[in-house]
């Protein structure tokens, strides 16, 4: 049966009507933001008992820094990956990761390289991570981490061959969110490759950054909440659970109640009012998985106005603390966004070359079928899958 659009359209109208942007007053938030003292906040964060993720400031919390002039000569190396997933219905066990790699060089000798390298994984030790009790299949989130490691490794390898100045660029985050929930052997397996790539980049002095378009994060806003908490005024650490209990039992109103529930993006767009090219101060992330990163690779971040939107840029600690590297990242990313009509050109091209088209997936399936047949294996897909392919009445 086809989708009943008539029935949906009335409800979709209700959806749109209810989505009016809240007419928040941001003046209180602006005052709270301006009043923050970075040292005081750092102390509060250290002691704080809260489940929210908090952003750790450096020496200064406030401020907007303009983009340095874009370097006349620079190269950007970017990668992106896509995969053909292990298919439960297929008798062959494998997955493919296609890594797109882009080099763009600007200046007196402009140059571009756009390549894609597919890799097929099918051996036992590639499909499963050995664990004490049982092996863990490389699928779902874990496959995503594997891809992230491959992408970063590709950038490290390609960037090593480029004349400077070079920056490496990734799409998304450098923080392997959620990896900490996996068993230790898996964490080690992924981090070995990931941190190895970061080591290689650091050794060669090539700054690496990741770019997040339309970020949904709120760690800086959460820190603003911590800054206005009244618990420290009473000699106690910030304690959101206790405060929440009191709110439920005693009708206590949290001191941070007046802070609107908005993302960091809104904060930097409306309150800090970053202008095109400007960036915020740098903050350190306190994501759980970073405890397993080596200290110099602890991920820091800043927000910047790309020209069309507020984006979040993440860098490892060794880049954040090096003014020259940080400036190069800032300037190059802004230039890439101008070049790419709002989104870094190198990331656009990496994505395009990595993307696997439906007809290419089918071609891979065909190749697998034929190879299996050639080697005498009976290729049979599951009954459920066959029922989808040969639909009948």
């Amino acid at each position, binding site marked *: 049966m086809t989708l009943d659009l008539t029935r949906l359209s009335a409800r979709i109208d209700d959806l749109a009507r209810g989505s009016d942007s809240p007419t928040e007053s941001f003046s209180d938030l602006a005052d709270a933001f301006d009043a923050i003292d970075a040292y005081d906040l750092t102390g509060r964060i250290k002691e704080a008992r809260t489940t929210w993720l908090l952003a750790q400031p450096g020496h200064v919390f406030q401020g907007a820094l303009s983009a340095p002039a874009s370097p006349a000569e620079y190269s950007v190396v970017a990668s992106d990956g896509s995969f053909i997933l292990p298919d439960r219905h297929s008798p062959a066990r494998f997955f493919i990761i296609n890594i797109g790699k882009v080099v763009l060089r600007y200046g007196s000798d402009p140059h*571009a390289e756009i390549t894609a*390298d597919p890799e097929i994984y099918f051996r036992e030790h590639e499909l499963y991570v050995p664990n004490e009790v049982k092996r863990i299949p490389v699928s779902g989130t874990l496959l995503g981490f594997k891809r992230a490691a491959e992408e970063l490794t590709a950038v490290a390898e390609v960037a090593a061959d480029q004349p400077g100045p070079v920056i490496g660029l990734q799409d998304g985050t450098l923080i392997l969110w959620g990896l900490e929930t996996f068993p230790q052997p898996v964490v080690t397996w992924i981090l070995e490759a990931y941190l190895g790539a970061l080591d290689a980049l650091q050794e060669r002095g090539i700054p690496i950054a990741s770019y997040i378009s339309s970020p949904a994060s709120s760690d800086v806003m959460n820190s603003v909440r911590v800054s206005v908490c009244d618990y420290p005024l009473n000699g106690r650490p910030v304690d959101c659970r206790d405060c929440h209990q009191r709110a439920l039992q005693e009708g206590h109103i949290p001191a941070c109640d007046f802070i609107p529930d908005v993302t960091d993006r809104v904060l930097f767009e409306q309150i800090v009012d970053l202008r095109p090219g400007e960036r915020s101060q740098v903050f350190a992330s306190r994501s759980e998985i970073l405890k397993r990163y080596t200290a110099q690779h602890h991920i820091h971040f800043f927000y910047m106005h790309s020209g069309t939107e507020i984006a979040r840029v993440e860098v490892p600690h060794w880049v954040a603390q090096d003014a020259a590297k940080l400036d190069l990242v800032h300037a190059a990313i802004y230039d890439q966004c101008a*070049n790419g009509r709002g989104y870094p*050109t190198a990331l656009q*091209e990496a994505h*395009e070359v990595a993307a696997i088209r439906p007809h290419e997936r089918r071609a891979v399936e065909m190749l697998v079928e034929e190879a299996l047949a050639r080697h005498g294996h009976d290729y049979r897909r599951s009954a459920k899958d066959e029922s989808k392919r040969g639909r009948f009445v």
Partner: protein
Amino acid sequence: MITGVLRRMRVNVVDSSDSNRQRYGEVIETSSARIWVECDQLNDLPPLGALVQVGSDAGDTIFAVVAFSETTGIDATRRAVRRGSNDVRDADVYRQHPELSRVLRSTFEAIPIAFERDGRIIYVVPPVPPPLHYSVERVAAVQVVRLTDRFDYLATLARYQGEIASEQIMISHVRAIYDTRDHDRQWLDTAAAEISRLYASEYDRLLPILEAIDPGEEPAGLRIVR
């Protein structure tokens, strides 16, 4: 028509050097009536009407006349957008966007008109289309002269139906060959006579061709023989 499969599974690599200037590019679509060629270098297209050649598995050399060219994105779903401005224009746009050499491509269509086998040129559509992915190259001047000593193939050109009117291809071809043959006036007169024969019943199509191929170097007009 056979189309290249899995062409995108591995994308072409680093900037090619100038060492292979004999080659225009590679066959990416092939059939008895036409071949479609992708150029190695962006915008490095043979002119309309030029002769190109491609080998075959059987050892033949197939000759074709360029009938159409275009430059577009390699991915049909990505359209070219304005990149320049008053301050950054023309060649500077390519310098500022080096990825353009990778995400755009120049292609051309050519009409097979003859093939050479064992040193003999046979003026007929080749028995088998040129293979996909074979190199398409410039035809050496001496070979152009040899090929165009006879006019048997002009009929194929005249009958061709494509995006550009066959008269335009005919004109471009004759002018190109006239140049390659060092303004061989006798050849031009004979070509004009042959073209007049082909378009004998279509005066309105014939006259513009004759006017366009007239080099205007000598006071005497072209002799039209019916």
